């Protein structure tokens, strides 16, 4: 378990270092994610070395977002001043992004490959 935790934290720490030294505008966690993908892909890290902790982290990901969600209480006053345009924009725009992205991907995918839905379980 300690080795598993260490490997995840190494990726994150390297991500922090990349951000610190290059000033790149990408979150350290996303750089860490890509480093872990690369590490696994190029067989530097074995999947079984991190499988346990990765499953724990991934299975409970929604839960880890609770504290940042509760932070919204700090901005309630700011939001309540213009809550109608804010709420409408958040909901309307999110629906439009969901539909436009999924439709574009679904259509391009079907025209590109003869057999759609080949990656169904």
């Amino acid at each position: 378990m300690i080795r598993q935790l260490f490997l995840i934290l190494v990726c994150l720490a390297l991500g922090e270092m990349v951000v610190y030294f290059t000033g790149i505008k990408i979150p350290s966690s996303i750089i860490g994610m890509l480093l872990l993908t690369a590490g696994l892909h190029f067989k530097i890290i074995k999947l079984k070395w991190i499988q346990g902790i990765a499953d724990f982290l991934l299975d409970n990901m929604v839960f880890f977002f609770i504290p940042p969600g509760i932070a919204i209480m700090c901005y309630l006053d700011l939001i309540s001043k213009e809550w109608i345009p804010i709420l409408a924009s958040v909901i309307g725009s999110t629906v439009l992004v969901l539909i436009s992205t999924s439709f574009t991907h679904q259509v391009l995918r079907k025209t590109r490959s003869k057999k759609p839905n080949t990656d169904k379980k």
Partner: protein
Amino acid sequence: MKLISEPYILLTITIGIYWLTKYLQNKTNSVFLNPILITIIAVIAILKAAGISYDTYHEAGKYIEFFLKPSIVALGVPLYLQISKIKKQVIPIVISQLVGAIVGIISGVLIAKWLGASNEVIISIAPKSVTTPLAIDISTSIGGIPSLTASMVVMVGIFGSVAGFKILQLFKVKNPMSKSLSMGTASHGLGTAQAMAISQRFGAYSSMGLILNGLFTALFTPIILALLGFI
């Protein structure tokens, strides 16, 4: 110091409410018993009633939040497992992300403008679809209010995670990759976490949406806002 503001007590309350709503959701299959939404509302209500500030709560919440960045790193595992499938789909994925990024920025600012939002709210809402640290950077660079942007990012995340898959179902999107990809595009980490709750394969595609939309939104937000005359 009140007893209720002790970190262990606040953690017990937070985890207890989350576990209970999750248990009830599994039992009843009710749409309204969404664990993340209920827990956030309930904990805020308790904190407000007890007169506890967010800073005090954060002394407890930071122990949960600690796992957030490592869990995003862990998305590297499903991403690695799906890499060959993603490679085959590079063009549809990239084009759909371009569409999603542009639709997200333009629709977000125009809806706010039509409903009479002030200019600073309009600017702050532009990067709402991407992950918090990126959205704050973008917001700062275009003259928005970072804290306002951060709260909109959270609202988008909660809405997407609660309603995203149901909306996709309503519009009859069938392809699993299209669905999970657009969850990451539309509602960043929380959408991805929701996709991950379905399967690791969904989580991998959703991560692609999270990453690519983050990059495209960072690139396009200043240009689009300038073209629309907001900055």
